[in-house]
């Protein structure tokens, strides 16, 4: 029998972890002389109180859905992919190449081309650490960290030396042509007559992200490959005994992970900036770790956690704007969420399991007493 009911594991545990993170964040705000309640209200109003706020919240959430899915697919194979940031940067290069050098007739085809290119480059960037893990036993965490730095330097080099238009100082590509412009929420909802803030960055990529959530769910729980990935993640030796090739699973799961992280660039590079700049991923690759942990590696959980972090991000910029609390406060909250849901999981789980066991034995004894 399980130590505690499933709802407690899936809903109660993350909620308690989240509350602990929120309480400590509130204490940090108190310590810096701010009122946490006011701050929370500013965050809610700024991110959910208007269609413009929602537009930003969902834009950030789109980034985090891609990177959160990326981390969770790798987690299912018990690979910890910290390299989402680098894979997203490479995905950005893929989007830029696709948008700048191919004369697309319409955005519907352009987005397909950009998806293929960004997924391919992201997958390649994950494939090298995966290969080294599978064939040479190099620890995937260390190599993916190293590949983040190498990706940042590579992007820096490409922007400064090759992709930058002649005569421009800023290390960035030229703006993408108008035919690659993705419709934003105002364009899409305008078709059915719903008004939406035209200057909010949420765009068509949100729909791709939702489709990706469903696709990852189907892959992990409804296909043979997904079964093999989960089996490998549960027990490498058992999977090997069942004839599953570790090399194949490590390579495929990491390449899917890298492709998902790379496709994040459809949102931020193609949908928002419409050109490639330095450090384009802005840490979203790392937030994917928090999102995957919070979402318990389930695509629906990732979807919800991504929206939660989208809210934190948009709310955080409102804090900076309205209350002069530095944006970095969001990084603190994010760190606390990772700490409580990821590393200190047992600290919360252990007393909870004890509680449920006690409740169960009490119920059992009272039953026997009645009989």
């Amino acid at each position, binding site marked *: 029998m399980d130590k505690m009911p499933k709802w407690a594991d899936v809903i109660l545990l993350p909620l308690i972890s989240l509350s602990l993170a929120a309480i400590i964040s509130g204490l940090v705000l108190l310590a810096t002389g701010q009122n946490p309640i006011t701050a929370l209200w500013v965050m809610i109003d700024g991110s959910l109180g208007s269609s413009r706020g929602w537009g930003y919240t969902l834009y950030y959430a789109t980034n985090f859905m891609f990177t959160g899915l990326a981390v969770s697919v790798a987690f299912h194979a018990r690979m910890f992919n910290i390299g989402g940031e680098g894979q997203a940067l490479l995905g950005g290069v893929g989007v830029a190449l696709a948008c700048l050098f191919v004369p697309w007739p319409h955005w519907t085809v352009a987005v397909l081309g950009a998806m293929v290119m960004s997924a391919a480059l992201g997958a390649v960037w994950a494939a090298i650490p995966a290969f*080294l893990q599978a064939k040479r036993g190099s620890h995937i965490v260390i190599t993916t*960290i190293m590949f983040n730095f*190498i990706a940042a330097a590579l992007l820096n080099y490409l922007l400064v030396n090759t992709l930058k238009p002649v005569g421009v100082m800023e290390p960035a590509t030229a703006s993408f042509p108008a035919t690659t412009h993705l419709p934003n929420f105002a364009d899409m909802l305008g078709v059915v007559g719903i008004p939406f803030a035209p200057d909010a960055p949420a765009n068509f990529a949100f729909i791709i992200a939702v489709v990706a959530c469903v696709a990852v769910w189907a892959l992990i729980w409804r296909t043979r490959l997904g079964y093999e990935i989960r089996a490998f993640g549960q027990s490498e030796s058992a999977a090997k005994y069942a004839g599953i090739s570790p090399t194949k699973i490590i390579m495929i799961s990491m390449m899917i992970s890298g492709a998902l992280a790379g496709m994040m660039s459809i949102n931020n590079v193609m949908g928002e900036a419409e050109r490639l700049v330095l450090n384009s991923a802005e840490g979203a690759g790392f937030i994917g*770790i928090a999102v995957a942990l919070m979402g318990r590696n389930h695509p629906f959980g990732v979807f919800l956690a991504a929206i939660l972090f989208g809210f934190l991000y948009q709310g955080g910029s409102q804090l900076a704007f309205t209350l002069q609390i530095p944006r970095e406060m969001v990084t603190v909250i994010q760190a606390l969420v990772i700490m409580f849901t990821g590393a200190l999981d047992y600290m919360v789980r252990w007393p909870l399991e004890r509680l449920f066991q006690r409740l169960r034995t009490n119920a059992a004894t009272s039953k026997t007493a009645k009989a």
Partner: protein
Amino acid sequence: MDLLSLLDLSILGSTLRTATPLLLACLAGLYSERAGVFDIGLEGKMLMAAFLAAAFASLTGSVWLGLVAAIGGALALSVVHGLAAITFRGNQLISGVAINFFASGITVVLAQSWFAEGGRTPQLAGAARFENWVLPGALTRIRDIAQAELPMKIYSQLISGHATIVYVALLTVPLTWWVLYRTRFGLHLRAVGENPAAVDTAGINVVRLRFSAILIAGVLCGIAGAYLSTALQANFTREMSAGRGYIALAALIFAKWRPWQALWACLLFGYLQALALRPDILKRAIHLDVPSQLLDVLPYILTVVILAGFVGKAIPPKAGGEPYVKER
């Protein structure tokens, strides 16, 4: 070709300075990982220490109080890592990632709240900074040094004239070697990273041993951070650790978790950093425009090559990353 200019004394001197924080963080990682606890959080602990050192030095006017605060802050994060990784048997990598994010955020939030200078601390001067030592007999004026003989130049420019922490870091290397290979504690430490069950059977407390290792790591990270903001620079700026914790991790792998090799690895990576700041020297030496980005990432590329086992295999401590569960 003028390869000798690659050994320019000013480059070698700045190598020593850039290598110092790497070396301290690398040795911190060495204690922790030799005891079987992965520590990705070196970066965060260094950053936290850098902020606290600059903040307290600025508030009290004493760099030594700054150093104490820095060590205290790094120790606090070490304890959190210990609770997560040792006591609650959580994922050591995730705990390290969380610590890095926490430090990255909280330093700016506190700096803004305490000093309101856009996430920086005020400029430090005088007793609030570590001054450079001038060893007896060393020349200080640039003109005197230029006219001196080579041994005197080396003595004055390379050996003399660094902050206290540079010499402390260099002395930590033989000290670490001695602790690790010549003391009972060091033997236990190495054993607990390879086979904690055997250490436990011998009647030694695994939890206490691992905690002492990560506390030593905390102290060393604290010194490394204080060096960044009170010796190398004269204030704290956001993200000032700039990936040094990860380079230290890379150096640790490069050194295959051994103290003397850690010194050479950190000097090599420090040299690459020093060279990246002086593209003119490299150009003069090999007549090629080496992109500075390549020099920046060379430590990471070299580490991946080493990890892949193409140039000698790097084998980490066997029990690294595994929480120890006592059998009943």
